[in-house]
């Protein structure tokens, strides 16, 4: 069973999530701030950390930095020995938060309005080393990589392939992976590969436009 650590500064929300997840996963630890989270994660070595974006002590990005910082960024090929993977869970819709935490190393982003069964599925997917994209995250990525006319420094990471774009558009349109596979006549595994590859580009792309773009959306 997937071993999960829950990091959120709201006790009420943590109990809610625990109740919703029920017996589908094993909750091995909880934390309410950055220091606590780093400690619990190091002590329990869980498969998946459900990570809140806004946390006292520096936020989810700080937890990511301190836990994965020494090991460097994960490539997510799933072949390396057991490692902790992060799924960001937040109420925030701000592009800055979403892009920030994914670039920090999270393997997915879901909003707190997600239903229990969906969350369980998302945790399972992240535990297997795949990426979890909500429609909104897919929209953000499409928007951020839209400026194709910008000369890129590193074409390998700075541009999306046609196929990746198609997959993202279908996610944004509300399609599940299975439906995307059917639509594009490819296997679910291939869909997952495409999404993981987008995630890597999102994490490794050097285009600083990405951060600037995300920050600019915050300006009111």
């Amino acid at each position, binding site marked *: 069973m997937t071993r999960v650590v829950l990091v959120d500064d709201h006790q009420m929300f943590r109990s809610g999530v625990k109740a919703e997840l029920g017996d589908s996963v094993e909750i091995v630890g909880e934390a309410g701030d950055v220091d606590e989270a780093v400690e619990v994660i190091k002590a329990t070595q869980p498969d998946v950390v459900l990570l809140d974006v806004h946390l006292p002590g520096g936020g989810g990005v700080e937890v990511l930095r301190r836990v994965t910082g020494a090991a460097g960024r994960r490539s997510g090929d799933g072949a390396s020995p057991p490692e902790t993977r992060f799924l960001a869970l937040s109420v925030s819709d701000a592009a800055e938060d979403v892009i920030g935490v994914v670039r920090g190393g999270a393997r997915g982003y879901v909003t707190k309005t997600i239903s229990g069964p969906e969350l369980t599925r998302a945790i399972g997917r992240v535990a297997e080393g795949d990426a979890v994209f909500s*429609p909104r995250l897919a929209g953000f990525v499409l928007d951020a990589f839209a400026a194709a006319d910008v000369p890129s420094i590193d074409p390998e990471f700075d541009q999306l392939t046609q196929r990746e774009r198609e997959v993202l558009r279908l996610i944004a*349109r*509300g399609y599940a992976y299975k439906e995307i596979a059917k639509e594009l006549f490819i296997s679910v595994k291939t869909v997952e590969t495409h999404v993981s590859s987008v995630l890597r580009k999102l994490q490794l792309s050097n285009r600083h436009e990405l951060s600037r773009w995300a920050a600019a959306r915050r300006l009111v």
Partner: protein
Amino acid sequence: MAIARTCDHLYVPETPSGADAAPVSPAAPRLERRAGGRLVGGVCRGLAEHLGLEPIVVRLAFAVLISAGVGVVAYVALWLLVPQHAEPEARRDRGQLFAYGALVGGLSLFSWGAGALNWAVWPVVAGGIGVGIIWQQADPERRQRWVRNTQAMWLRSIIGALLVIGGLIAFLAQKVHPGQAGQVLLGSTVVLAGFAVVVAPWLLRMWRDLDVERRERIRSQERAEVAAHVHDSVLHTLTLIQRNAQDPREVQRLARAQERDLRAWLYQPKADAEQDLAAAVRKISAEVEDHHGVPIEVVCVGDCPLDDRLGAMLQAAREAMVNAAKYAETSSLSVYAEVVGDEVAIFVRDRGKGFDLDGVPEDRMGVRQSIIGRMERNGGKVTIRTAPGDGTEVRLEMTRDRK
């Protein structure tokens, strides 16, 4: 926010605005400088309104007085002492300004005559302009502005100071005997230094107070805005939720609406739903969600300004959302709007019960007229994919006009 707006309204009508209001009111308007319709500082216009005269009369009088010399002092004094009327600034009428300028110039030349040839006059004029520039910044309204734009303020102050110093040096060079120059310079320096020692701490403190006050004001404005928003919307919704506690559907609807509202306020850049596609799609989805109680997830990529054809497309999209919310028996809808180059596409998707497209009777207006007809009339395209038990996706596409 509503509170702030109410306050603004309270302040505005106190003073009658516009020249035609003056003769009607029994008491003369307060003497205030007018930002609207002013030529230089709004002094003449304000004075004219106060005295019940035509502005041109007062302006001509000042032109004559200024040419004679005394008018300058009077004008500057009024500028500094008379408060400004709270109103938006209007552009100066450059034609009139030029005419009065020429008049003053001509009169000056006439009244000073040979005096203008006397070189002793020019240092005084240069110094006077410099002082004018520096003092102009002591105007409270202007000070607010130059606190914000410090670079321009320094530039103006330096130009003013240079003019003053240049004027003084030129004056001294002419009037003081070269042999005494050293002593005069020493004397002036001592006096100036003493003055600076006395005044500097006071100036510094004033500057700091101003800065602190400004920051405090910005902070309290922000606080007031947040408080007003939370009070207006969130507290009201919480009250409504308590009142409707027996009706889970209504509670969910209220919570969704409030969540959407708060999110938009917190995270989304302010956008005009009358002008931009993405904002309009969000607004329409919100309305349908509110009305039919089905949560709609909206994702927008790219944006473009609205026109009539895109307006029709939005209406079609709305119809598609309403249809899905009403008939699909689904728990949620996905709406995806995308602008790539000139291509605009909106997808409305549900995982509901779907329907047999061929089985839709000819007379069912919803799909045929409101969606397909509307799109085709505006040069757009509709693709509907559905099957019983397999959900529905309505895909609207249009090529945007480039202006």
